[in-house]
C-alpha cells in the first residue's frame, strides 16, 4: 500500500497561563492512501491536536517537534486544496452572513482557479452530492435557515469542494443526535469512496469509529497506545486501556447496570 503521510515523533506543547502543557508526546504513525483511519481517545488524549497538526492549523505559538512528511505529489499540501477539514460545530465553521452556496463556491474558486460562474455550478453539484434538498434554493440560503445536520452537510461540501486527497473529520458528528449522526457517517463513507479520498476520522466513540474505519489508532494522554486493523482492535485489543474503553461502551446488548449484582467500586 502507498503511504500518504508519515508522522514521526510528533510532539506538540501549548502554553497555558505561562505553563507548557504537552498535548502530544512523540506520536509516530503512517496514514495509508485511500484508507479510513480513525483516531480515538478521551478528552486530553491529543486526538484533535493531531488532526490540527496534520492540517497545519496549530497556532503559531505552539511548540512542535518531530515531522509530518507528505508523500503526495505536492510536498507542501494546502488546507482546502489537498486537505479538507470538517469541525465539530458547523455553526462556527460556516460564515453566518454568507449564503452557503457562496461559501462552497469560494473554496472551488480559490483552489481550482474557476470562474465564479463555474464555482457556483460546482457548489450546486456539491449540494446535490451531500443530499441537501432543493440545491437551487439552498445555494442562496444562509446557514441559520438550516438544521444542524444540514449545516454539517454544507461544511462537508465546502471541505471536499477542491477535491482534497485527505478529509479530516474532527468529532464531526458528536454535536448531532443519533439519527443525524448515522446519516452524516453514511454520507462521509459514500463521499470518501466516490472520490477515493483518505479519511482521518477523529472521535471519542470507539463503537462509532468501528462502523467506519479500516484501522483504529488509540490515543491516551498524548501517546499512541495502540494502532491496528479495526477487527483486531475490537476483538483482540493489545492494550489494557483499549480493553477498558471497549468495556465502558454501553451498547444495546450489554447487561444494564441496573441489573448487575453488587456495588461496584
Amino acid at each position, binding site marked *: 500500500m502507498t503511504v500518504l503521510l508519515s508522522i514521526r515523533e510528533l510532539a506538540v506543547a501549548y502554553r497555558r497561563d505561562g505553563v507548557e502543557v504537552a498535548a502530544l508526546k512523540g506520536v509516530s504513525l503512517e496514514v495509508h492512501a485511500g484508507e479510513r483511519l480513525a483516531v480515538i481517545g478521551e*478528552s486530553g488524549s491529543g486526538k484533535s491536536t493531531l488532526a490540527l497538526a496534520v492540517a497545519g492549523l496549530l497556532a503559531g505559538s505552539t511548540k512542535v517537534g518531530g515531522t509530518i512528511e507528505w508523500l503526495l505529489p505536492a510536498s507542501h499540501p494546502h488546507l482546502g486544496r489537498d486537505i479538507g477539514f470538517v469541525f465539530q460545530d458547523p455553526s462556527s465553521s460556516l460564515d453566518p452572513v454568507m449564503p452557503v452556496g457562496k461559501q462552497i463556491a469560494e473554496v472551488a474558486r480559490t483552489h481550482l482557479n474557476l470562474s465564479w460562474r463555474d464555482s457556483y455550478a460546482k457548489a450546486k453539484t456539491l449540494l446535490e452530492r451531500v443530499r441537501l434538498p432543493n440545491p437551487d434554493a439552498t445555494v442562496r440560503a444562509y446557514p441559520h435557515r438550516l438544521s444542524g445536520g444540514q449545516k454539517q452537510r454544507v461544511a462537508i461540501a465546502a471541505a471536499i469542494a477542491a477535491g482534497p486527497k485527505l478529509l479530516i473529520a474532527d468529532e464531526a458528528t458528536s454535536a448531532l*443526535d443519533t439519527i443525524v449522526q448515522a446519516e452524516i457517517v453514511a454520507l462521509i463513507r459514500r463521499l470518501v469512496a466516490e472520490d477515493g479520498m483518505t479519511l482521518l476520522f477523529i472521535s471519542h466513540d470507539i463503537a462509532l469509529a468501528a462502523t467506519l474505519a479500516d484501522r483504529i489508532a488509540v490515543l491516551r494522554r498524548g501517546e499512541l497506545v495502540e494502532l491496528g486493523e479495526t477487527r483486531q482492535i475490537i476483538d483482540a485489543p493489545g492494550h489494557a486501556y483499549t480493553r477498558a474503553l471497549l468495556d*465502558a461502551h*454501553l451498547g444495546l*446488548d450489554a447487561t444494564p447496570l*441496573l441489573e448487575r449484582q453488587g456495588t461496584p467500586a
Partner: protein
Amino acid sequence: MTVLAVSNLAKHYRRGDKTFAAVDGVSFEIGPAETLALAGPSGSGKSTIARLVLRLIEPDAGRIDFEGHDFLALSGAALRARRAKLQMVFQDPLAAFNPRASVARVLDDPLRIHNIASRAERPDRIAALLERVGLDANLAASPIHEISGGQRQRVAIARAIATKPSLIVLDEAVAALDVSVRGQILELLLDLQREERISYLFISHDLGVIRAIAHRIAILDAGRIVETGDARAIIADPQSAIGKALVAATPKLVRSSQETL
C-alpha cells in the same frame, strides 16, 4: 403513589407567523425510586418537557402533579418549598457559576437558601455531601474551573441532593463525559437512587445509556410520546418508526471475543 404525574402537557412556540407544538399533549407518571427516560431526536420536545416540569417555563395546557400537589398552582413560599424536592442536573450544570467560585460555594447555596443547615453546620454538611458523591472533602476549597469534568458532574449531583429531593431531572447529564467517567457517574446515580429512593426523569439521546440506567422509556417524536414502556423491551423491539430509526442509528460494537473477557 406517584412522585410525578404529567397529563396532557402542551407548549406551543411561534415561529414567524406559524405556531408549532414543541410539546403536544404529553402524559406520563414516575413512581418512587423509578427512572423514566425520555428519548427522541433533536427537536422532539425532550428538553422542553424538562423545563416545563421544572417550571423554568410555563405550559399552555396540561397538569403537573408533584408529590400529590398541583405543581402549576403553587406560587411564592409554597412553590419554593416544593421546588427543593425537585432538582436538576444538566450537561454542564456548573457553567452558570463564576469559574473562580469554590466547590464549597456551589454547595453552600442550596443549604442556605432552603434553610437546611446553619452557617456553623454547613462546612460539615458540605464535607458529607462531597463524600456521598465519592469526592474528597478537601476538594471543597478548590475553584470549580480547576476540577475535572467528572468531578464537576459529581459536585452538581451533590448540589442536587443537598435538599433531599424526591425527583431529579437529568438533561443529557452524562453526554459530555468521557466513557470511563460516564460509567462511574451512572453507578453513582443508581447508588443514590437505591439508598435515597430518588426518582429520575432522565433525558438522553443515547439509547445505550438509557438502557443501562432507566426502568422505563418514553420515545418522543414531534412533541408527542409515540411509544412507552419497559426500557429494555422497547429498545430490543421498538414498534414506532422513530424508535426503530433510533435503534438502527445507534452504533453497534460487535465483539466476537466478548464471552472470553
